[in-house]
Structure formats: structure tokens, C-alpha cells
């Protein structure tokens, strides 16, 4: 068993406010192995993006990592000094943001931005870095890269800019790419191309990918495994086919039931009643219990820990054998 590229254990992220600390991430654990694509899905505010930011060390004050550990190929990175962490960012972990229109500095040629990044992390000459930049642009599918390299960001379309952003994220051959909603701001037709590109790059270079999105279609197409997040915790994690076809957690069931199908029979889409709790008012026990049909007394007092069920893991008391025995 090889060591996972990314291993997150019991991660906790807090945001300090005037009165108390709000816990945005509370006890999240997962692994990503080489070449694997892990999808992270959930509602807005579930903590998907914060988890990504925590991994790459870009949680801005007043937020901070309050507990747990993050390991990159065995190296613990959550408590590295800022300068050490900076050297890992861009070199060993690449990140792709949501909006390609605002991710690139509008005043610099894209080639200069790529060369700058390459030369920050690799000791290459200006010419060698430029050559590499052209190769990278070709690899992410930008036509006539030797001409386009001298273009400014505003001269590119949204999809092309996201390709440039991806080229920037992979320019130092990182072990891990964090893609934070990389397709949300794009046209549907372009979305598919970008997803295929990320998928291909992951396969060709053996890069582990953490794909944050709220688009189940993207998850189904791209990911090997998927983690469903709710209120800063992982409700369920497992192979993508299992989680989509036979979700275990009531929240995951609700989420999958809310996806319209083209081929499926004429059934009403499931709607989960209520809304996700605010960070300042997370209920005791299971955070999902006020919205859960199957909630019982234990759900309101005791927090469920992840339980293995085949290849899946689910944080729900319904699957705790002891309880079902007692209840019977």
C-alpha cells in the first residue's frame, strides 16, 4: 500500500469572530492517492472550498487551522512556516480557481505570468522557462501557443483563460491539484472540455486531484471517489458509482434524489426540507438531524463518527449496528 498523496486527518478550521470562534470545518478526514480524482460536493457553505484552502495553506485571518493534520506524501504541511509553505504552493500543490476571468493579472502577458511561476519554483533560464510555457500551453489545448503566449488575459475567452490557469497550476508538475469549482463560471460546452482536460492531466502525470464542485454531473463524469460534505463535516465518502447509485447517508440520499435524470421515469424530484444551519447555530449531535426524516434521539445528542460500509464510509447513527440492535 503506497502512501497517499494527500492525507487529511481530523481537520478543524475556525474563524474567529468578535464573540466566539466559528468552526467551519470540524473533523474532516480523507485521503487521495496518486492519480485519483476525489470529488468534494455539498451545498454552499458546507466547507468544500475552505477545505481546499486549508490544504494549500491559504486560509486568511481571522480563519486558522485549529486542529488535525494535513500530510502531503507523508510530509506534514499544516504547521509549516509560511516561507516553507509558499515553496510548496505552486510547486507540489497546484490550485485552479472558480473564475478564470479574474484569476489572471490583467496587466501582465500570460507568458510572463507562466514564466514567472516556473522560474519561482524551478531553476530554469528565461528561454528554457518560455519554451516550457509554450509546451504547457500546447498541452492544455491552446492553439498556436507560440503566438498566444504574448497575449494579455483579456484577449482570451473564458474557457481559454481557464486553460491558461490550469497551465499555471501544473507548470511545476505538482503531485496534487486542487480545483475549486473550475467549471462553475463556464459555458456547459466548455465545462466538458475543461473537465476532460483535468481528467487527462491527472491520468498522464499521475497527479492526484481534489475537485471541489456542487455539480453532481461533473462529479459523476470525472471522479473516482466522492466526499459529500455537510456543515463542515464529511457525511459520506466512497467510490463515485456507489455513492451516486446507493447513497447511505440521508443527506446524500436527498442530494442524489434531487438530481433530474433525462432517461429516468417521471418522478418528482426529492426536496430536502429546511436549509443548512448557520455556522453559529450548528445543532448538537448530528448537524443534519433537524432536516432528517430518520432522525432519532441519539442523533440529537451524540455526534456520529464515520463508519465503514463496504467501500463507503458514512457518518450516521442509522448504520451503527449496536443502535439497531438496541432499538430492536
Amino acid at each position, binding site marked *: 500500500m503506497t502512501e497517499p498523496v494527500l492525507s487529511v486527518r481530523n481537520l478543524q478550521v475556525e474563524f474567529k469572530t468578535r464573540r466566539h470562534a466559528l468552526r467551519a470545518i470540524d473533523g474532516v478526514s480523507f485521503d487521495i492517492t496518486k492519480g485519483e480524482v476525489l470529488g468534494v460536493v455539498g451545498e454552499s457553505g458546507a466547507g468544500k472550498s475552505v477545505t481546499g484552502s486549508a490544504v*494549500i495553506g*491559504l486560509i486568511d485571518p481571522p480563519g486558522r487551522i485549529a486542529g488535525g493534520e494535513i500530510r502531503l506524501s507523508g510530509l506534514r504541511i499544516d504547521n509549516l512556516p509560511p516561507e516553507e509553505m*509558499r*515553496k*510548496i*504552493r*505552486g*510547486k507540489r500543490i*497546484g*490550485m485552479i*480557481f472558480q*473564475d478564470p476571468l*479574474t*484569476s*489572471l*493579472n*490583467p*496587466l*501582465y*502577458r500570460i507568458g510572463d505570468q507562466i514564466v*514567472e*511561476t516556473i522560474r*519561482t*519554483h524551478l531553476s530554469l533560464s528565461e528561454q528554457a522557462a518560455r519554451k516550457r510555457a509554450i509546451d504547457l500551453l500546447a498541452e492544455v489545448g491552446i492553439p498556436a501557443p507560440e503566438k498566444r503566449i504574448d497575449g*494579455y488575459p*483579456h*484577449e482570451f475567452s473564458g474557457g481559454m483563460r481557464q486553460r491558461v*490557469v490550469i497551465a*499555471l*497550476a501544473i507548470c511545476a508538475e505538482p503531485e496534487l491539484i486542487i480545483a475549486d469549482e473550475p467549471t462553475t463560471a463556464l459555458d456547459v460546452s466548455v465545462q466538458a472540455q475543461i473537465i476532460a482536460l483535468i481528467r487527462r492531466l491527472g491520468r498522464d502525470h499521475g497527479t492526484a486531484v481534489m475537485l471541489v464542485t456542487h455539480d453532481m454531473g461533473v462529479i459523476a463524469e470525472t471522479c473516482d471517489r466522492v466526499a459529500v460534505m455537510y456543515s463542515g463535516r464529511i457525511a459520506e465518502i466512497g467510490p463515485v458509482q456507489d455513492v451516486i447509485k446507493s447513497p447511505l447517508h440521508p443527506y446524500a440520499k436527498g442530494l442524489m434524489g434531487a438530481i433530474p435524470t433525462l432517461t429516468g421515469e417521471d418522478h418528482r424530484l426529492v426536496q430536502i426540507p429546511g436549509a443548512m444551519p448557520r455556522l453559529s447555530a450548528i445543532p448538537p449531535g448530528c448537524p443534519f438531524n433537524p432536516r432528517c426524516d430518520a432522525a432519532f434521539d441519539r442523533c440529537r445528542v451524540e455526534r456520529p463518527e464515520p463508519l465503514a460500509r463496504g467501500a463507503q464510509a458514512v457518518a450516521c447513527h442509522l448504520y451503527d449496528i449496536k443502535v439497531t440492535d438496541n432499538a430492536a
Partner: protein
Amino acid sequence: MLAFTLRRAIQAVAVMIAVGIIAFSMFRFAGDPVNQMVSIDTSAAQRAAIRESLGLNDPVLVQFVRYFVNALQFKFGISYQFRLPVADLLKERMPATLELATCATILAMVFGILMGVYSALRRDSFLAKAFQAISLIGISLPTFLIGILLIYLFSVTLGWLPSFGRGEVVKFGWWSTGLLTISGLKALIMPSITLGLFQMTLIMRLVRAEMLEVMRTDYIRFARARGLTTRAIHFGHALKNTLVPVITVTGLQFGSVIAFAIITETVFQWPGMGLLFVQAVQNVDVPIMAAYLLMVSLIFVTINLVVDILYTIVDPRLRATISRPA
């Protein structure tokens, strides 16, 4: 790009013609010029002769065209009080004002940008808060008061710096400079600070606000995610993006610096165009006033033009919109 420059240049010329009309009309509304030139015992016949020789009996339009053609050749007439060509007077005084204004602007830009960047990046430090407090003073205290306070402190009490004048100057043709002598430099310090303080605080606050804004943008976050060094992010990516508004304000303020130099020059008895203008107003010396108006407008218009062109150098997006005019 060329079309854009041309278009802006034509606009500039239109503005200058409008200013020329205003300057010209000053002659007609600020009293009878002949009365300003002659003594009490000049006879009516002599006055009529002068009037005729000056062409004051010609139609207004003819007079305006004559004035305009002369102004294009930098002939602004004869000063009533000095009996010398106005152009020569201005030429003599201009180096003093331009040196003062340039020094003040450079001072304001260098310190304004440095302090602005610092107070944006170290927002909670004591020094940043001190800068903010000082900038309030700089914005709210009137120029003449700052000048008088400086004179009181450094000239009267400490005796370090001269309280008035330009010190020794060195001549290069018609240009006289105080930058090459110790006394000239010493004399330049306080007037430059007085004149530049307001601009400095303005630039500082602007840079701080812009910098804070830019530091929140996605491309700065992405630059951090790419692992660029803090220095490259702050001074390469962030500062350049704050420069467009800073260039505008500094450019436009350079015109105001020259115009506001009137007050500073009066406080420090600085022998520049501003002081000349104040004396001209006191003596109803219309040719000087009109010429000063034209000069200051010309400087304003030129700076505006330069600023517009500078934008396109800093921001490539503007180059694109300009070459494809809407």
C-alpha cells in the same frame, strides 16, 4: 493608438482656444488698458494716439485674432507695471515654479506611494495608524499655515533653513536652477514640503485604498496559490494594478500643484510665476494675468494628454479598446 492621440490633441486645442477667449476678454472687462499705462497729465489726444497705436479701435474680432496669433508666438504684450514683455517675465520666473512643483510632486509620489503601500500591507501596525493620523492633518491643514509653521520651526527657532527666496541659482541659458547649489537646495526643502504635503497625503490614502482593494482580488489569491514570493506579489502584481488611478491623480494634481504654488510662493517669497501673478492681480496688470491663465491652462491640458497616453502604457486592456474605438 495614433488616431486616439490625435483625437485627444484636437480636444486639447479646442480647450486652449476657449481659454484664449477668456484670457482675451479679461482685457476688455478689467478696466481701460490705456488708463493703466499713462499718467494723470496725459492729454486726451495722446491717449487717443496710444489707443490707435495699440489697435484698440479695431473690431473685437480683429483684436482677438491678433492677440491669438501673438500668443501662439509667445508674445503676450507688455506688462503695465514692469514695462517689459510679459513673455520675458514669465520665462524668467518659470524655472523657479517648475522646479518647485516638480520637487513637490516627486516628494509627494515617493513618500505617498511608500507610505500607502506600507499602511495597506501592515494595516494594524502602529506606524500605519500614525501615517493615517498624519494624513488627516495633511489634508485638513491649509497650505499657508503649514508653510508658516515650518518657517517658525526650522528658520526662526532652529535657524536651519532659509525662510524665503531661492538661494543661489546657476544659469543655463535662460533657465536658472537652484538644484546645483547648497543654498538653493536648502531653500527648496520647506517650500517643496509645504506644496507637496497635500498631494502626498492624497496619494498615500489613494494607494492604501487601492492596494487593499487589489489585495482582495482573485488574481492576487491565485498568485499566492502559485507560490510566488511575497515581494513579487506585493510589488509586482499588486502595486502595478494600483498605479492607474495613482497616475491620474498625480498627473491632474501636478496642474493644481502649479496653480496652488501661488500660495506657497507667497509664503516663502519664492520668485516664481505664482508670486508674479499675485503682484499682477494687486496692480491690475492684465497682460500678465492673461498670460498666466494661458500658461497654466496649457500645462493642465498637456498633462491631461500625457496622462491619457500613460494609461495605455500601464494597462494593456485600454490599448485594445482604444485601437477599436466604439
